[in-house]
């Protein structure tokens, strides 16, 4: 049993919603425990300045940002070194999923706003960002799922929340494309023996598989329910 009453391999309750912003090309929202994260996608669009163009593929830009009110103590709004590193690893986690060759000389912007943070925000951010990319209609090889695992009170557990991350012995965020069977992000801090490392990795991958199912359901909720009559109604409302 854990601090918040979960079993070792139990994830926090997750709520996913797709298409939640008016202006963004694609957007998604995730609640995972107390985490609340909003992601908006702009692009593929023209790159400014133009020297940012890549001749053979789209440039992907990613910003992970924590809102000043997202944590116990106010977070200084200036980008911290942590946020800069996380923006980089999230971009690198999503790059392999996007078929960027379809949109040379353009840029795809990924904006991740962590509105409330309670541990595991880079993973939750990746989960929502991948949904938002799908919502923007950007071709992808596969959804990217993400989940962390680690060690708390000597026990290997998955999906650590803030207190477990702070007082636990290890935390390992992993991003995974389940159907391709490949890891696109892995980081770890703390201390794990080889056996514990392997157990934690398997647990994180299992969490990713569960979350992928939730991602697919969220996309279906947004798009599958759209029957012909609903489409007709939407079009007539837009034309009013």
């Amino acid at each position: 049993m854990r601090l918040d009453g979960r079993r070792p391999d139990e994830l926090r309750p997750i709520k996913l919603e797709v298409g939640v912003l008016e202006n963004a090309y694609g957007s998604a929202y995730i609640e995972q425990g107390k985490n609340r994260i909003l992601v908006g996608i702009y692009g593929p669009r023209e790159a400014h300045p133009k020297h940012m163009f890549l001749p053979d593929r789209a440039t992907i830009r990613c910003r992970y940002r924590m809102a000043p009110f997202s944590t116990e103590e106010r977070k200084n709004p200036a980008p911290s070194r942590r946020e800069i590193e996380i923006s980089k690893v999230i971009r690198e986690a999503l790059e392999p999923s996007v078929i960027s060759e379809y949109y040379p000389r353009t840029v795809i912007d990924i904006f991740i706003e962590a509105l409330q943070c309670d541990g595991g925000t880079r993973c939750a951010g990746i989960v929502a960002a991948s949904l938002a990319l799908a919502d923007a209609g950007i071709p992808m090889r596969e959804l990217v799922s993400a989940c962390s695992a680690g060690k708390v009170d000597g026990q290997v557990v998955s999906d650590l929340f803030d207190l477990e991350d702070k007082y636990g012995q290890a935390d390992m965020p992993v991003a995974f494309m389940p159907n391709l069977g490949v890891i696109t992000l892995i980081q770890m801090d703390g201390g794990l023996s080889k056996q514990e490392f392997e157990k934690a990795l398997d647990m994180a991958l299992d969490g990713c598989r569960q979350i992928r199912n939730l991602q697919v359901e969220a996309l279906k909720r947004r798009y599958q329910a759209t029957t012909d009559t609903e489409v007709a109604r939407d079009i007539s409302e837009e034309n009013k």
Partner: protein
Amino acid sequence: MSTTPQIPVITRIERNSIHELAAKGLRLDGRGILDYREIKIEAGIIEKANGSAQVTLGKTRVMVGIKVELGDPFPDTPNEGVLTVNAELTPLASPVFELGPPGENAIELARVVDRNLRESKAVDLGRLCIVPGKKVFIVFVDINILDHGGNLIDASTYAALAALLNTKMNEFEIKDDEVVYKDSRQPLPMNNYPVPVTFAKIGKTLMVDPCLKEEESMSTRLTVGIENEDCVCAVQKGGMGELDPNEVKAAVEIAITKSRELRTLIKEAA
């Protein structure tokens, strides 16, 4: 904001031959896939620093200086000294390094070195507290890249570790909450010796200690930090590629074996 980098400047013929060799378990410079380049570690080369070391790893050259100064503790760790790591990719080290504040690569480098040192509890920060909540020692680890020949993470961490082992600070007494220095000097209290092993994935092959050309040809980078008791203390994946879970597990196994040899080397030099 993190942006897809420009394609590295490497000729197609070199890139292809690196890939073809990698598929056969071979490398440009004749090394095996689990061999490091020649490592040279010189400790104590900057007299004005409390500790220093220079590591030459093939064509890569990194200098690390340690300064120990008085300062305030963090509010959440009032009884501990502070460790801060900074890295500069100086423009003299590579044509692709630019002037200006540290970019995401410099920040990632510093944070991965920091993660190795911090998570293994390499420096005994508990013994660097002077007045709890008020006054502690701050250990500044400053990494200066002098020549970029690939695998900066490993070279920088080895240099940082050697420099910390080489660090001398004045012995002190505490009188009325003030620090009074004595003439004698003492080493920095150290607990652990974390050693990262960095892999490049080229094609389907994982190789340790990539040189610059190999880094320019790799799809993915993976760093596994191992501490004294063969435990994993830090992991970082970099690059725009992907890894199979079994590749990660294999890398951990290799890193555990490799780190033992490297640790002996660093301890002997420092």
